[in-house]
Every structure is written in structure tokens, then in C-alpha cells.
């Protein structure tokens, strides 16, 4: 089977070359409003980073694009067409592949079976799986991406987190995805493995895909991103091109910016003796001033009350 070919992305609204565009999208879970008025463009050959705290609505946003949930307000255009996906199958058929943080692969299945899951190569009138061919292609594709797995019959659960993410990305690229969505692919990884995944993101971008990169970590985002969107409580609070924002500003925005400075003020007012001066805090309370807050692997460290 050859990789899927989809219709070429059409130009929407004149100048943009969006493959996927959301306009004022909203999503409610019952009376919980998880997304409100979200406008977002995913363009070919660009990495669009979506940042935000826990509960900001990042997963909800992904699920709408991936066809797991439908949106209740606004519009979503895929290749210039207004779409409402009712299943992941529809989203996939439109060239959108999603790599979930934890649910991308079946752990006990072999590497090659996982690679071809949902896109198996068949031969003969009985529809027998072409196992040698699938193993061959899988091996070639992974080698191309620099992943070396000697035994493709190994259960995928025995591989490292970074290898699994890379296999999931390689699979999406091979099967002709136009847009690839990555849900916090580096959150559970060490520094070195994160680096490998980030390299793949760049490769996917250079291969002409539109990449949506969800992350907590502004450093990771800034390493590969062309475009940054910050979500807060279901709303877009920042939407900036790389030219318009520096890493420091992005980090500050991500860390809560002015709000945290206010918080620091408030706390100091409450009990001055117990709050350390901003410049001695490694937690990034005074982020707007340009001092880089230390953000841990999962982006959770460094944001919070000062430690004494």
C-alpha cells in the first residue's frame, strides 16, 4: 500500500496556507466550558506550539482535531473545508494524525504490528497480511529516522519512551499525514530522549507537515516552534509568531507573567518575613524582568510559591 495521498491544501481566506484552521471554536462538557472562542491556524511546514497549564484545554483542543470530540461553537476548516469529525477515522482520512502521550501504541504487540496498525498491507484474495513486506518497510522507515531496533518482533512495551514516541511519529509521516498532532511528547522523557523527539519534530516540519506541538515546556517549544499559542482556562491568551516573541517573554507568559508578580507582591504584603526577595528565588516569580525561571522536565517545577 502506498502512503495516503490527500487533496493538496487549498488557500483559505487569501494569504494563509492553513491546512487546519479553527475560528472561534468552543467546546462544553455539560456546563463546563473547556474551550471558548479559540482561533488557531496550522500551516504546512510550520510547528505550531500550544502551551498552557493543566486544565487549560490543550487535550480538549487536540481531541477536536483528532475526531474524538466534536466542537459546539465556531468553525473548523480542514483543507479549506468546514468539517465536523465524528470519529478518529474521519480525522485520519483527512490527513490528521495524532500521537497521544500515553495511548499511541498497544504495548504487547510487536513493533511492526503497531507500526502498521490500521494500515496493514494485504496480499492475495484472502487478504493475508504481507508480513515480510511490512517488516521490511517498518525497518526501513525506522532506520531512515535513525531508530535502530534489531528485532521488530519485540513487544513495543519493551522500548523506551522516546523510541515509542519516535515510532509513532515515523508511522504518522509514513502514512501520509498532512498534520501531525503531538500531545506532550516530551513530558515523560529525559533530556536526551526529549532531544531525539524534538529532532523528529523538526524532520516532520521539514518534510512539509503541519505540526501541532502541545507542551508545558516553553524551552522545548522555543527550540522548534514557528508559532506559539498559549491557552488559559480555555481561551487563547497569546498567539504570536516566533519573530514577535523572545524565549524570555514566552517563558514569562507561560509562567503566568503579571499574575505571578502580583502574587509575589501579595504574599510579601501578607508576611514579609517569610517571603524571599524575588532575585533570590529560583522559582521564577519575577519572570518578566528577564531572569530565566528554571522550568523542569515537565514544566511543572519553578512555578509556584517561593521556597524559603
Amino acid at each position, binding site marked *: 500500500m502506498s502512503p495516503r495521498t490527500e487533496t493538496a491544501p487549498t488557500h483559505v481566506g487569501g494569504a494563509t496556507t492553513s491546512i487546519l484552521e479553527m475560528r472561534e471554536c468552543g467546546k462544553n462538557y455539560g456546563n463546563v466550558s473547556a474551550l471558548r472562542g479559540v482561533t488557531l491556524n496550522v500551516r504546512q511546514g510550520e510547528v505550531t506550539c500550544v502551551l498552557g497549564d493543566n486544565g487549560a484545554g490543550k487535550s480538549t483542543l487536540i481531541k477536536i482535531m483528532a475526531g*474524538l470530540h466534536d466542537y459546539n461553537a465556531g468553525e473548523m476548516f480542514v483543507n479549506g473545508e468546514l468539517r465536523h469529525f465524528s470519529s478518529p477515522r474521519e480525522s485520519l482520512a483527512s490527513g490528521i494524525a495524532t500521537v497521544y502521550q500515553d495511548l499511541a*501504541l498497544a504495548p504487547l504487540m510487536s513493533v511492526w504490528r503497531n507500526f502498521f496498525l490500521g494500515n496493514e498491507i494485504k496480499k492475495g484474495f484472502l487478504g493475508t497480511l504481507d508480513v515480510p513486506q511490512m517488516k521490511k518497510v517498518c525497518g526501513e522507515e525506522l532506520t531512515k529516522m535513525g531508530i535502530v531496533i534489531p528485532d521488530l518482533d*519485540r513487544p513495543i512495551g519493551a522500548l523506551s519512551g522516546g523510541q515509542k514516541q519516535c515510532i509513532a511519529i515515523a508511522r504518522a509521516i509514513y502514512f501520509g499525514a498532512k498534520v501531525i498532532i503531538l500531545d506532550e511528547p516530551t513530558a515523560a522523557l529525559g533530556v536526551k530522549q526529549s532531544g531525539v523527539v524534538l529532532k523528529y519534530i523538526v524532520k516532520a516540519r521539514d518534510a512539509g507537515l503541519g505540526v501541532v506541538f502541545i507542551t508545558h515546556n516553553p524551552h522545548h517549544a522555543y527550540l522548534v516552534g514557528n508559532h506559539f499559542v498559549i491557552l488559559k482556562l480555555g481561551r487563547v491568551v497569546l498567539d504570536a509568531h516566533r519573530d514577535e516573541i523572545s524565549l524570555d517573554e514566552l517563558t514569562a507568559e507561560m509562567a503566568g507573567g503579571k499574575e505571578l508578580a502580583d502574587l509575589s507582591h501579595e504574599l510579601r504584603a501578607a508576611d514579609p518575613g517569610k517571603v524571599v526577595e524575588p532575585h533570590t528565588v529560583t522559582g521564577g516569580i519575577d519572570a518578566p524582568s528577564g531572569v530565566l525561571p528554571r522550568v523542569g522536565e515537565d514544566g511543572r517545577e519553578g512555578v509556584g510559591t517561593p521556597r524559603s
Partner: protein
Amino acid sequence: MARPEIGALIGAVVVLVLFLVVAPPFRNLGNVGTVLYGSALIGIMAVGVSLLMIGGEFDLSTGVAATTSGLTAALVAWNFGLNVWVGVLVALLVSLAIGAFNGWLLVTTGLPSFLVTLGTFFVLRGANLGITRNVTENVATTSIADMDGWDSAQAVFATTFKIGPVSIKMLVLFWIVLTVVAAYVLLRTRVGNWILAVGGDDAAARAVGVPVRAVKIGLFMFVGFCAWMLGMHLLFEFSVVQSGEGVGKEFIFIIAAVVGGCLLTGGYGSVVGAAIGALVFGMTQLGINYAGWNPDWFFSFLGVMLLLACIVNLYVKKKADAR
């Protein structure tokens, strides 16, 4: 990678050697047919049960569902005075419908299969008795051996033929064919790939476009098909069906699949392994008899074997993962 059925294979060889040593009649070639028949009575259901287990679910209603199938065929033919084959077809539809119902209830409610099929088990158990007594005023069906279509149906479902000194029951042939077909489907078709994925991680399978609900419902329907095969064999072997039959059998089928290397949590296992598991049962059942041991202890022996098999399988799997 070590295949999942390795543990069962070792177990089967151990049991075989044990009974060859301690039970002289076991060495008699003529008894091979009897051992195979005993195994087929378990194995035919274990085919469906193992695929279902690999797909991440199990079914507690299989034992009574086989009885339901036999009862349906007998009662429909007898009550309406129809050709036996009409009863056979209606039974097939009923068996598939029971499977579809189990699957549908599972995927729509999200309840665990343990609860869904436990419910079905009790419903069928009651219905088997209630409907039979209502129609025949008895706890068993009336013999349908003198009705139209009996001879041809019996020839299909319950003949015996000879290969050399060994008499082989038709059910044994069905069991082997069904095992081969199911093993092929599991390992060499895309549906098989989907079954493995759905059992391994259904959210992951859904995310890459596998029709998870359809796969689950289909698996339950295949179990229904196996129940129909067993039910038809029992009907045409004995010409009457006892409405209370089948209770407790569901665990034996599940055990055969587990001994055969199927993981109770899904995503891993083997149909051939389940067949070997059934063979271990068949050999044990007869071996104990032939050895002149007290058959009261049969179930204890099974329990020990189940635990041993699970430990061996766990060990084999750990070894495979650790490489």
C-alpha cells in the same frame, strides 16, 4: 520472541509422559480418539473464548449458551413440527444474537464483560429451564431423532469415522479446522491485528482508526458461533438436551485459554495455545480414569495445573519482554 503457547506445550508433554508412564491403557492407540473427543468438547469453545480473551474480554455465558443453542434447535423443530435443519438455522441466529447482545451491551454501557456476561449467564440459565418446561412439560427436550432432516444433520454434526484403528468424531475435525482458521485470522489478517490491538489498548486502537466496537461485538458473535457448534454436536450426539446442562463449563473454556497462554487482561495469547490447553484437559480427564486414580480429585488436579501453567506463562513472557 517466545510464542505464547510454549508454556502449554511444555505442560502437554509433561501430562502426556506422566499418563503414558502411570496409565497403561493410555498407551493404546485406539484411545487417541477418545482423548481427542474429550479435548474437542472443550476446545471448540476455547477457540472463540481465546480470541475473545486476546481481544480483552471474557464471557461467562458460554456454557449455558451452548445449551441454549441445542435447546433452541430441538424445541423449534419439535414444537412446530419443522425440518430439523430449520431448528439448526434458528439456533444459529439465536446464538449469534446472544453474542451480539453481549457485545452491544458491553460497548454501549462500558460495563466490564465480567458483569455483562454474568447477567447473560443467569438469564440464559433461567430461560433454558423455563422455556423447556413450558414447551415440553419436562426439564429435557423430547427426542427429535425421528424427525425430518435428522439423519443428514446428524451426519454433519455427530458422525464418527475411522482413521486406521482410531475412531474420530466429527467434532474433533471441526475443532481442528476452526482452530486453524482462527489462528490464521489472528496472526495473518488485519482483523487479527485489530483483535490484538483492541485487547492490548483499545484507546490506542481507536485513535489509529480501528473500529473497536465492531471488533468487540464481532468477537462475542464468534463465541456465539462456537456455542452453536457445540450445541449442535450435543443435540445430534444425544438427540435430547438437558436444560440444566452447561453450568460451570464456562470456566473450563476460560482455563483452557489461560493455560494456552492467553493473558486474562487481553492483548496477548494464542488460539493454538488454547487448543493445546484443551488437549491437556482431555488427556487429564481420561488419564486419571485410565490410571485408576480417584476421579473425585480431577478438579484439584486441574486447579494445580492452571496455577502451574500461569506461573510458567508469566515466566516465559517476562523472559520475552526482558530481551
